[in-house]
């Protein structure tokens, strides 16, 4: 059977957003929230790419005068901070917001208003950094702003404060998003989707969310301590008063290293989904993949000191972290072999999403191998702060996370828009980006080995670095051109692309059961899952259950391990309060750059917004004997 018209109309009425601007401001639809995350992050990726191109222009010839040292410092700080805090992590959260409920056959996230709040607060962080840049208060100390350089003695003004508060914005948003994603995956799986039947994508998003929950408090704490040193004269990092500058590095990297993996792990989820669909077989080694992601998630918390080998820590400590850093190659390698085996053993075809998987495999393996080299403390002492590290980090982050993301974008684009992207232009963009990227970044390994330090705004002629720098600049320009082709293809296809239908790839998981684009309520019924690949049931009808309300917003809550149905939970309606709460929180964060009084005073509007958010919509208690509702 198919859902009849009256059912669909009823669902539309129940889940429809208010029209116009008010609907835009109040929506709690996970797909709309995710889409605005994605559009914002893509715009920022473009801006960060322009900064990168500008820096490459500056370095293309020795003693170039395109940039001053200050502008170069600002450019790499803004590029790194934008890409790490405002693009990579938020994009992964956005993909989770968009896909998790669809893949669960659920109607929305566990906490819809919290999802809206996450986006508005993230957007506050975006505006904080980039409006500050527009008025020339750009952070200029790199993406990690170590004290004492970022302390009050060496960084007067507010550049460092802007950086630190931008982090507070984005991390509160990310923490709220992670609780939301984890609760949704743990408690809203459809009947039958036990933990053992959970697709790798959902495992990846669950583990990345849990990692966020454990790692991001470290950066919140350390940037708060930095602000407090700058604002109220605490001494956490001032050595003269018993503080310790290395403490900042420990806390930063206790977050910073897991951050790399919580960007990479969702990428493994994308790759797993794409490989399974296009190899037309269930993933080879599903359990191995899940256990590998789990071990990467755990090991990621034991590696942070490998970013600090040059600090002068005890040798035994360095040895331990060398071993731990190398150990992570084992689960990462197991994953790669599982994907390769699936591709090898399946009836594989190679449309654009699969090309991105191949690009990911090749590039990430190179990045992983250079990671094994830098994991060795002895070698790292030679390589640290050279262009070798710039090459390595871009190979793992762009190759390991961005390429899978681009593949994911092409793979799920038809689901989001109802149209296919052009395969031809998709392949052109793939070729330009992957080719340009490798041309741009591979020479940096050699430049690093030749001794070229990172974060220098220029270099003298006669160092022998000119040719490779020019190759790197040409490669970056080609990659940026590829990026423009990719975006143009997405925009053109949005209006002119071929209609895709609900399931153009013959996907294995439940998001392909809904219409393309999915309606506000996702699926008319609650699916019942009997395998890891519920859509591959021989083309037969999908088993579903009815009974979740169609007349009011309601979702199904199930048990954590067995996904047994427990109860029907009311799901929040559109509301302006998440936006107002985010505005109140933003006002406090921004005010606290200038005065500590912003914190107690700013608490009052936040409390008012939260009271409005949770204001009861149940009836008033009657006068007389107090009774509970039946």
């Amino acid at each position, binding site marked *: 059977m198919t859902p009849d018209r009256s059912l669909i109309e009823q669902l539309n009425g129940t889940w429809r957003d208010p029209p116009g601007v008010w609907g835009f401001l109040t929506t709690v639809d996970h797909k709309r929230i995710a889409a605005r995350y994605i559009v914002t992050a893509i715009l920022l990726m473009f801006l960060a790419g322009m900064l990168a191109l500008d820096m490459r222009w500056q370095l293309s010839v020795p003693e170039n005068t395109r940039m001053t040292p200050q502008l170069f410092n600002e450019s790499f700080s803004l590029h790194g901070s934008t890409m790490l805090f405002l693009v990579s992590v938020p994009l992964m959260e956005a993909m989770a917001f968009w896909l998790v409920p669809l893949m669960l056959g659920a109607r929305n996230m566990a906490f819809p208003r919290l999802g809206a709040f996450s986006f508005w607060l993230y957007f506050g962080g975006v505006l904080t950094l980039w409006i500050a840049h527009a008025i020339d208060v750009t952070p200029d100390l790199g993406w990690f702003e170590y004290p004492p350089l970022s302390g009050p003695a060496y960084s007067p003004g507010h550049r460092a404060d802007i950086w630190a508060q931008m982090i507070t914005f984005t991390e509160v948003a990310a923490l709220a998003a992670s609780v939301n994603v984890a609760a949704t995956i743990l408690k809203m799986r459809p009947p039958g989707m036990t933990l053992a039947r959970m697709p790798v994508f959902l495992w990846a998003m669950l583990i990345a969310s849990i990692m966020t*929950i454990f790692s991001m408090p470290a950066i919140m704490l350390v940037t708060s301590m930095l602000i407090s040193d700058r604002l109220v004269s605490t001494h956490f990092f001032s050595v003269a008063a018993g503080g310790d500058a290395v403490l900042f590095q420990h806390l930063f990297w206790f977050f910073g290293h897991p951050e790399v993996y919580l960007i990479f792990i969702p990428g493994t989820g994308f790759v797993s989904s794409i490989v399974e669909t296009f190899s037309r077989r269930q993933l080879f080694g599903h359990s191995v993949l899940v256990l590998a992601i789990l071990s990467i998630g755990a090991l990621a918390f034991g590696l942070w000191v490998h970013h600090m080998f040059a600090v002068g820590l005890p040798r035994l400590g360095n040895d331990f972290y060398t071993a731990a850093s190398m150990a992570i190659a084992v689960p990462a390698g197991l994953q790669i072999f599982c994907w390769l085996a699936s591709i090898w053993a399946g009836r594989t075809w190679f449309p654009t999403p699969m090309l991105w998987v191949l690009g990911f495999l090749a590039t990430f393996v190179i990045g992983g191998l250079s990671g094994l080299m830098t994991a060795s403390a002895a070698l790292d002492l030679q390589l640290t702060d050279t262009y070798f590290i710039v090459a390595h980090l871009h190979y793992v982050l762009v190759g390991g996370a961005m390429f899978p993301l681009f593949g994911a974008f092409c793979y799920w684009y038809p689901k989001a828009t109802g149209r296919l992207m052009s395969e031809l232009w998709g392949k052109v963009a793939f070729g330009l980006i992957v080719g340009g990227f490798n041309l741009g970044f591979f020479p940096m390994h050699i430049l690093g080995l030749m001794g070229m330090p990172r974060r220098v705004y220029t270099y003298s002629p006669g160092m022998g670095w000119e040719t490779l720098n020019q190759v790197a600049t040409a490669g970056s320009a080609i990659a940026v051109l590829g990026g423009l082709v990719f975006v143009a293809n997405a925009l053109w296809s949005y209006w002119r692309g071929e209609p895709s239908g609900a399931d153009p790839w013959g996907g294995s998981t439940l998001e392909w059961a809904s219409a393309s684009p999915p309606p506000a309520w996702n699926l008319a019924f609650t699916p*019942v899952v009997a395998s890891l690949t519920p859509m591959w049931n021989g083309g037969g009808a999908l088993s579903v259950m009815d009974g979740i309300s169609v007349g009011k917003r309601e979702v199904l809550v199930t048990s954590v391990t067995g996904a047994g149905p427990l109860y029907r939970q009311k799901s929040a309606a559109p509301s302006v309060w998440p936006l107002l709460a985010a505005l109140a929180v933003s006002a406090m964060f921004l005010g606290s750059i200038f005065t500590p009084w912003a914190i107690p005073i700013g608490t009052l509007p936040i409390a008012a917004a939260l009271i409005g958010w949770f204001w009861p919509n149940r009836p008033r208690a009657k006068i007389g004997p107090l009774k509970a509702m039946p």
Partner: protein
Amino acid sequence: MTGARDFEIVGTLANLPTSATGPRHLVWWGNIGFMVIEGTGFALAAAVYLYLMTQTHVWPPKGDVLPGLLWSAIFTVGLLLSEIPNIWVLRCARAKNLAGVRWGTFAMGVIALLLLVPRGFEFAHLGVSWHQDAYGSVIWLLLVLHTVHVVTDWGDTVVLGAWLFTHEVGDDQFADVEDNSNYWTFVVLCWLPVYALIYWAPRAL
């Protein structure tokens, strides 16, 4: 608006209840998520204290006065005793005892407010200002961090309590009271290591 496949209805969820309690409830997991975030924050702040302590030969630094024990003891005993009414409220919530959760939540609001009095004196008797040295900074950090949690839960309790009196109370509200009680227990448990670090670690060395 239809998807890729036909559907076959194999059962109904219409008979399920519309609420649950404890770990069966969705919001219980959200509450746990935020406790884990904040608990990690406490653990890291404690690690900062221990790290700074190990970087110096004398702790607290010479000339710093040790934090006073009287008001912190009053606060700690009061906080521990508050668990008795807190657990009673929790049981009332599980038993769906309406009058119990109303007056119990009201009482917890009063108790949290009263506890802020010795907490205020604790700040006055820390013996060192936050801007004197790193030792002062970190004990203020720990105490402020915990105080923020007491104040937050107090605010939450007062608002929840007010709505329990003014609006009808259903299963979801009993679940809210349960979550609020669990959060207070979290605030109490977090205090014990923080108390040991602020008041006893400097004396033990």
